C-alpha cells in the first residue's frame, strides 16, 4: 500500500499530524501499537503560552471543546499547577484561592479518587471543605466487581444517569460555592459537562482520577473518528518491525500484522511516544529507539540518568531522539531525509507542567506543515 505519509504512532501527536495532512489532501496511514498516552491525559496542554487558535479550531472540528485561559488548575492531590490551554472539562483559575467553601463528592466503592487529599490541599488555601460519598443504586452493579470499578465503567453508567447526580447534589449542597467531582462524566457526550454545570448553583470543578482518563479517551475517540472521516487509514494493534532505508531515505516499513505487505510512503512520521509507549527503550546499558535505531541523547554514564532523590526532576525524562532543527530524525549522525520525529519521543517534556501534550501538538503541526509545503514547491 502506498501513501503520501505513514505515521507511526496513533496518539495525540500522530492523530494531529494525520488530521492536518488529510485536510490538506495528503493520503496517510497511522500505525498504532495499543492505546496511547491520551488514556492518561489530564486535560491540559503545556507549552501553549501564546493563544494557539489553530489548535482550538482543529479540535473544534473534531467536536472537542478547548479554552485558553492562563492560570492554575486543581490537581488530584489537592495541589495546583500552571495551565494554559485545556479541555473544557478542566476549570482554569487565576489563582489557587478558588472559592470559600467546597463540597467534594465521590462514589462509595470508587478507589481512584482521593477526596481527603483534595480537602487537605484546598484547606491549605483557606477553603473550607466537606466530603460526601454518594451511594447510588445505579452503581451497585459495578460494586459486585470492586476491582473493576473504574473511571470508565462509572462514566458509562453516568452517560445515562447523570441527572440523578444532579438531583443528589442539589439536595446535598448548602452554602458551598465550589463543587468538586471526579472526571467521570461525558465519555460519549461532552455536553453532559455543561449541562451539569448549568444545573448546580455553584462552580463545578471536575478533577482528574487515576487512569484511564475519561476526557482523554473521549479525545482519542473523537480525534480518531475525525481522522477516519477525512479518509485516513488507522491500523490499530499493529507494530512496525522494520524499515527499508537506502541513502538516508526510508522507502517502506514492515509491520507485524501485514508481514510482506510493505507500507510505502514519501514521508514518514515517528510519533511512537516515550518510555511508556516503547518509543524509547532502555536497558542497564543504554537508551535506544527500536525501529530505526535513531541517535538518542543521553548521558554516557548510567548513574547520570537519574537523580537518587526520587521526587526530584529526573534527567532521563528529558532524553529523546536527536533531530535537526526541522525535526528530521538523526541516525548515525546523519539526518534521515524523509523522517520526522514528533511528540514525546523528542524528550524535553515540560515536567513542571505535568505532561507532553503541548509538545505533541506543536511538533505534529511543524512536521505536517513541512510536508504540505514540500509538495507545493
Amino acid at each position, binding site marked *: *500500500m502506498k501513501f503520501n505519509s505513514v505515521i507511526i504512532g496513533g496518539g495525540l501527536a500522530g492523530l494531529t499530524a494525520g488530521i492536518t495532512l488529510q485536510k490538506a489532501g495528503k493520503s496517510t496511514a497511522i500505525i498504532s501499537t*495499543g492505546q496511547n498516552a491520551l488514556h492518561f491525559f489530564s486535560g491540559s496542554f503545556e507549552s501553549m503560552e501564546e493563544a494557539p487558535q489553530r489548535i482550538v479550531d482543529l479540535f473544534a472540528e473534531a467536536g472537542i471543546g478547548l479554552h485558553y485561559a492562563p492560570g492554575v488548575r486543581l490537581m488530584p492531590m489537592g495541589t495546583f499547577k500552571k495551565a494554559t490551554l485545556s479541555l473544557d472539562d478542566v476549570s482554569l483559575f487565576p489563582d489557587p484561592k478558588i472559592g470559600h467553601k467546597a463540597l467534594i463528592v465521590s462514589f462509595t466503592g470508587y478507589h481512584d479518587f482521593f477526596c481527603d487529599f483534595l480537602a487537605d490541599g484546598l484547606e491549605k488555601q483557606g477553603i473550607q471543605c466537606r466530603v460526601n460519598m454518594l451511594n447510588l443504586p445505579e452503581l451497585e452493579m459495578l460494586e459486585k466487581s470492586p*476491582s*473493576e470499578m473504574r473511571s470508565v465503567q462509572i462514566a458509562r453508567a453516568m452517560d445515562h444517569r447523570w441527572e440523578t447526580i444532579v438531583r443528589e447534589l442539589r439536595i446535598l449542597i448548602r452554602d458551598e460555592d465550589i463543587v468538586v467531582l471526579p472526571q467521570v462524566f461525558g465519555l460519549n457526550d461532552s455536553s453532559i459537562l455543561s449541562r451539569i454545570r448549568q444545573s448546580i448553583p455553584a462552580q463545578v470543578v471536575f478533577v482528574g482520577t487515576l487512569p*484511564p482518563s475519561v476526557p482523554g479517551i473521549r479525545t482519542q475517540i473523537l480525534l480518531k473518528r475525525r481522522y477516519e472521516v477525512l479518509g485516513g487509514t488507522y491500523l*490499530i*494493534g499493529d507494530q512496525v518491525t522494520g524499515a527499508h532505508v537506502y541513502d538516508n531515505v526510508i522507502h517502506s516499513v514492515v509491520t507485524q500484522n501485514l508481514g510482506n505487505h510493505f507500507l510505502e510512503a514519501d514521508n514518514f512520521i515517528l510519533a511512537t511516544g516515550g518510555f511508556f509507549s516503547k518509543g524509547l527503550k532502555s536497558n542497564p546499558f543504554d537508551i535506544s529507539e527500536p525501529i530505526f535505531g535513531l541517535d538518542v541523547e543521553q548521558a554516557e554514564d548510567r548513574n547520570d540518568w537519574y537523580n537518587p532523590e526520587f521526587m526530584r526532576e529526573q534527567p532521563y525524562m528529558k532524553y529523546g531522539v536527536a533531530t535537526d532543527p526541522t525535526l528530521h530524525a538523526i541516525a548515525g549522525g546523519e539526518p534521515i531525509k524523509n523522517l520526522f520525529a514528533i511528540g514525546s519521543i523528542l524528550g524535553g517534556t515540560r515536567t513542571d507542567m505535568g505532561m507532553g501534550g503541548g509538545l505533541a501538538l506543536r511538533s505534529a503541526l511543524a512536521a505536517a506543515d513541512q510536508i504540505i509545503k514540500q509538495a507545493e514547491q
Partner: protein
Amino acid sequence: MKHQEYTLSTHNFEECMKCTVCTAYCPVLQVNPLYPGPKQAGPDGERLRLKDPFFFNVGLKYCLNCKRCEVACPSGVKVADLIQAARIKYDTSPVKWRDRLLASTDFMGSLARPVAPIANAVTGLGITKTMMDAMFKIDHRRTFPKYSGRSFERWMGRHEKEQAAFPEQVAYFHGCYVNYNFPRLGKDLVKVLNALGVGVQLLEKEKCCGVAMISNRMMNEATRNANQNITALTKAVDKGLMVLTTSSTCTLTLRDEYPALLGVDNSGVRDFILMASRFIYERLEKGATLRFKPDYHKKVAYHTPCHMEKLGWGVFSEKLLRTIPGLEFTMLDSACCGIAGTYGFKRENYEASQAIGQPLFDQIKSVNPDVVACDCETCKWQIEMSTGYTVMNPISILAEAIEV
C-alpha cells in the same frame, strides 16, 4: 542484550503495567458484573494462579475472546491468550454436552446436511427451541444458521477439472460454514478468483479449524483437528500454493491460536494463509483488473469483526470494497457484535451478548445501508438476527459487482 528475553513468561504477563487501559475496551465488563475484567482475569490473576491454582476464578468463562484487550494494550501483553490458557489449564470441570454439541460444527454439519430441509424446519420451530433451551440451555431466542442441502466440497468436486485448467492455482480453506451452511460464499470466491485467472482447489483433507472446541475446552479434539489441518496445509504449501480463507476467525485460529493455545507448530505454513480479500487487493494493486458492472449501486456499511481487527487486515476488505465503482462505503465504529461464536448461543450469555452488540445494531440502523459487509459468519448471524439487515462477506459483494 538478551537479559530480558530470557526472563519473559508465556504470554508475557509481567509486562503488564497495571494501566487498566484494557478494562476500558472490554465489551463484557460493560454488561456483566460477574466477569472480573481483562486485567483481573489476565495478568493480575495469573500472578495469583501461579502461586496457587485455588485462585482460578470460574468467571473467566464469560470472556468471549474478542481480543480487544490485546489490541488496546500499550505494553503488548497477550491478555486474551492468558485468560484462555488459564481456562484450559485450571478449569477441570467436565465439558457440558451442550458445549460439545455447539462446538462440533463439522460433526453437526455432516449430520444435518443430508436432511437439510428437515433440519432447517425443525430448528426453526418454537417447540424445538424451547426444548433445546430446557435440555441444553441453548437460548430459545437465537435464530439458528440454516444448513445447505449440497456441501461446498461436493460442488467443488464437480468443478475440479475446469478449476485445474487455470494456469495459476490457490488452495481454499473454506471452513465449516461455507461447506455446510453457505456454499454460496465459496462459489463467489471461485467466481472472483477465476475472473483474475486463478483456479481454486480444496485442501486434501480439511477439518474444522477448532476455534469453538478451544473456547469450549475440548482440547484433545481441537489438537487433533489442528494437526490434521497442518498436514493438509503443508501439502498445499509444498505444492507452491497460497491458502486463501474467507472467515476471519478460522484465519486467526490457523495462524495464531494453534501455536499460542494448542502448542501446535504452524511456522511452516503460517505466512501462506491469507484472507482472500488481502490476496485479491494485492492482485489489483499489482495491476490486475476486474470488469465491474457499469450500473452497480450499493450502500455498504462495513463491520470489522474482532478477529479481523486482531489480524490487522480489515484495511484490505475496506480498500477492496472502496475500489468498486458505485459502492457507497461507510466504516462502522469498531465494536464487538456480541456473539463470539458459540458464546452467544448459551442461555447464560444471551442477554450480555445482545447488550454488547446494541451500540453496533443502533449504528447500523442509523446508517441504514443496503447491506452490512463483514468477514465473519457468526457476526453475520448475530447482525442479521438482531437488526434485520442482510450481511454479506466482502467477497460476495465483489462477486456481485463484477461482470464475467
